């Protein structure tokens, strides 16, 4: 029994970092219907620059982390302004290609600059401390990730639903032309969306970095986060978080009880199964194209 609960808890802990990446992808998709494959690498760049600030210039944490978040925000603004907005005939495939291209550029840049060997990132919390609740152990970093993921989800959910900016984002997604006519500066809204999304992604990256730090570190969380977002319906913030928990838990259960070898393949298998039954994910209303 204790073992089962432990597996479930570790699953949710793993799911939390997927959830953050999923949230970041959902924010962009909600507003602009672009799947951002560069999400992970945008976070990667911010994280490696934080590493540089901490290790080479010896700044304290309270300077390094806020500046990393600020950098992530600006990076998001910049990429939307300089690249995405310049696309001539934006369609789904074209946007996917552009973000994959950006992903390769950022990934290439980071691995060229820092090399492929793993590094250790200093962090206020050690990933090896653990909290114990009865007979269940969680590392304090995992607990922090869990709390951050839930907090960010709530904040973003409230922000998108009740703030003026959030409603403007929704309007932009639903009908860009009408939103423009109502006086919303849709281009600026898109830029802000990318900034916020990059910020969330950077948070995820900073929380992943203490356990694993190398140029490929964001691949897996990004893909799983994307899978989680799709499972949750791609437009629903709570959906992507619960999708991430489902993926994390199923992965861990499968790894613990069936076969550790095929652990990360099972996530994608579930996705395909779920999509066969509910083509728009679990938490989204099914989208019917009107002719």
């Amino acid at each position, binding site marked *: 029994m204790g073992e089962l609960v432990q597996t479930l808890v570790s699953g949710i802990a793993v799911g939390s970092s997927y959830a953050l990446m999923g949230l970041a992808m959902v924010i962009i998709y909600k507003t602009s219907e672009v799947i951002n494959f560069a999400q992970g690498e945008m976070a990667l760049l911010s994280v490696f620059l934080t590493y540089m600030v901490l290790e080479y210039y010896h700044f304290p944490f309270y300077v390094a982390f806020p500046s990393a978040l600020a950098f992530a925000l600006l990076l998001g603004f910049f990429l939307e302004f300089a690249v995405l907005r310049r696309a001539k005939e934006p369609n*789904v495939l074209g946007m996917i290609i*552009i973000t994959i*291209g950006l992903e390769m550029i950022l990934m290439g840049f980071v691995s*060229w600059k*820092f*090399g492929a060997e793993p590094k250790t990132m200093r962090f206020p919390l050690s990933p090896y401390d653990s909290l114990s609740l009865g007979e269940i152990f969680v590392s304090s970093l995992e607990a922090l990730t869990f709390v951050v993921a839930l907090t960010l989800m709530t904040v973003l959910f409230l922000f998108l639903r009740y703030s003026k900016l959030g409603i403007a984002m929704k309007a932009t997604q639903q009908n860009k032309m009408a939103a423009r006519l109502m006086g919303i500066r849709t281009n600026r809204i898109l830029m802000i969306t990318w900034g916020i999304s990059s910020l969330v992604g950077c948070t995820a990256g900073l929380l992943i970095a203490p356990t694993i730090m190398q140029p490929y570190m964001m691949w897996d969380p990004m893909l799983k986060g994307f899978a989680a977002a*799709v499972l949750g319906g791609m437009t629903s913030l709570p959906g992507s978080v619960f999708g991430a928990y489902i993926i994390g838990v199923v992965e861990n259960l499968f790894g613990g009880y069936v076969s550790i070898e095929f652990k990360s393949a099972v996530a994608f298998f579930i996705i395909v199964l779920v999509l066969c039954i509910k083509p728009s*994910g679990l938490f989204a209303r099914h989208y019917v194209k009107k002719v």
Partner: protein
Amino acid sequence: MDMKRDYYEDVRLFGSKVVLFWFLVLIAFLGFFPFLFRNYYVYLANYMAINVLVAIGLNLLVGYTGQISLGHAGFFAIGAYGTITLMTSAHLPFLVALVLAAIGAALLGFLLGLPALRLEGPYLSIATLGFGLTITQVIGRIGFFGGRQGLHAPELTIFSWHLDSDRDFYYLLITITVILTLVARNLVKTKVGRAFIAIRDADIAAETLGVNIMLYKTLAFAVSAFYTGLAGGLYAFVLRFIEPQIFSLLMSIIFLAMVVVGGLGSLFGSIAGACLLSWLDLELRNILSIPYLGGWLEALSKSYFSITGVSNIQLIIYGSIMVSIMLFEPLGIYGIWIRTKLYWKTWPF
């Protein structure tokens, strides 16, 4: 401008005598190619021919039918592993094994096409991406397929022709590539190709006009997978050694990049894109030995970047090409070609 007057003129294999002439010149050039250039270029040509096959297959799916796939490395892996295991375990002759493996890939493509009937956009991309990753992982863990150690390609003999050099293999490869390119050309010009294009442009409208969406979408996946599987089987013999790590997500992305760089919905574009990116791939592998630029890059890497990560410049270049093609010329190399042609046709105006 020449005007087409009847249907048969439109579906003709060669539009005019001029096209036929240049096609024959190209065939003659390809025939004499190994005698004109040194071995490295023959190897490069082999590599290009394989990528051309994949790019054409993928373009039939992405460019003509409008279905995105981020999992073609999976079909490629099935072709490669299928061919080798059928040859070593079932002792089938090469050509039979190759075609059987490709048919196996096509069946899986058909199966992947079934969920794709209901999916689009992000949902389809994650499903295909998951498919590709799953195939690689499953193959990597099964001992029968050599696991992580990989597999060695057996000796290659067709009837009594023993292919032991790149030069011999080149002729086999070029024959297959030319034939399959012509097949693809015929496919897109006839009923099937028009159905693909109709599905891409407006699937609901196509369905109301009597295009069987279920048949043609799954057919597009199957044909695309067949081409890719066949290319995979041939690739195993170019490399002579395959391991699961080769067939990564990055490979699927690069296949997609070839199609996009060349031009979506154009066979000429696929050929050009595949050739360009394969050439860049082989050239950039030893980037530091490129004249002039190499030394400068080495100095730059030593002072500002890391010398161990210098091979990643390849990623930066690929990424920049993909982004700039999408931003400035969404039709890719084919678009540039059309514009140049139009410019000279209407020149001085």
